[in-house]
């Protein structure tokens, strides 16, 4: 088995996450799919760190985790605010600007 097999898994997970962002309508599930994409990128960072033999990739993955945590905190706060005013967490309902 080659270390690059992890990269294939990473690509698959990233693609699945991207489909989820487009297809699902519940804002929270969309958010979880974004998290999945970030994690897929992290996996390839870690794998490349192993392939290249230095720890820089792992440091990058560490930073990604911190930024993802920030993003979750702010994003979920936005979802709660939207839910409070519109009683819905569906991304299709927040289309006021269209009309």
């Amino acid at each position: 088995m080659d270390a690059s097999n992890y990269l294939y898994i990473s690509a698959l997970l990233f693609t699945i996450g991207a489909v989820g962002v487009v297809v699902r309508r519940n804002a929270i599930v969309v958010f979880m799919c974004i998290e999945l994409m970030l994690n897929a990128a992290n996996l390839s960072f870690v794998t490349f760190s192993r392939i290249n033999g230095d720890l820089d990739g792992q440091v990058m993955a560490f930073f990604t985790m911190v930024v993802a945590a920030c993003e979750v905190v702010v994003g979920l706060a936005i979802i709660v605010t939207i839910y409070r005013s519109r009683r819905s967490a569906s991304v299709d309902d927040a289309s006021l600007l269209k009309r």
Partner: protein
Amino acid sequence: MLQLALEVGQTAKPEAVMFWILGPLAVVAALGMLLVKKAVHSAILMAFVMIILAIFYIAQDAAFLGIVQIVVYTGAVMMLFLFILMLVGVDSSDSLTETIRGLRPIAITAAVGFGGLMVSLLGHATLGRGAVGLTQANADGNVQGLAQLLFSTYVWPFEVVSSLLITAALGAMVLAHQQRTSTRPTQRQLSINRFRGDSLGTAAGLPGPGVYARHNAVDVPALLPDGTPAADSVNATLSARGDMLDYKKFDLSEVNTKVEEEK
């Protein structure tokens, strides 16, 4: 001599076994995330994928990141997701019908194209050398190596990221804060409202639920002296959810009152 057939870049056999069991499981769980209807099930599958990724990290000599993955993702982030799900409503399940016509086929085609491109790209890419492995970089320990990098080369990004974290926490507090539009009623005001209201019927508090001696539980309305159920006695949430039982089942005329002799 016991030779560990571990070429650099070639992963050892136990790792291959682990990979071929957990890898497909991760992909299946991720696909399940897309297909399940309820957001809570999505969240649980997500946590499952996160744990598998943590195992992958640990298998790839990134012990620190593996532990952080479990602590931060399956611990804090998924916890936050579930918390928001509780707040927004657990049963707010997605209707999986598409609203934009033709979106799903387009999305799936694009995904197959993108995924195929990535996979074929990875298949064709060559480094010109094998993977190096982290034995040398991790010689002083993974955590020590990471700390060395983090506090020397990457100290500026580290500080920036820490300020980002603080800003995010403040932003979430500002977003979640709600201004009170009316003053909070005082004890005195509440008491006046209770006794000067439309009727004195509930002034002494609402009746408790349950048909006594037959079904003394919160989901059955109490009976008034004339035999009619007191709707007030059941919690409004229970009756809104339709979890209120019919009191008639416990009516005295329905019940077998014959005392059976015990042996």
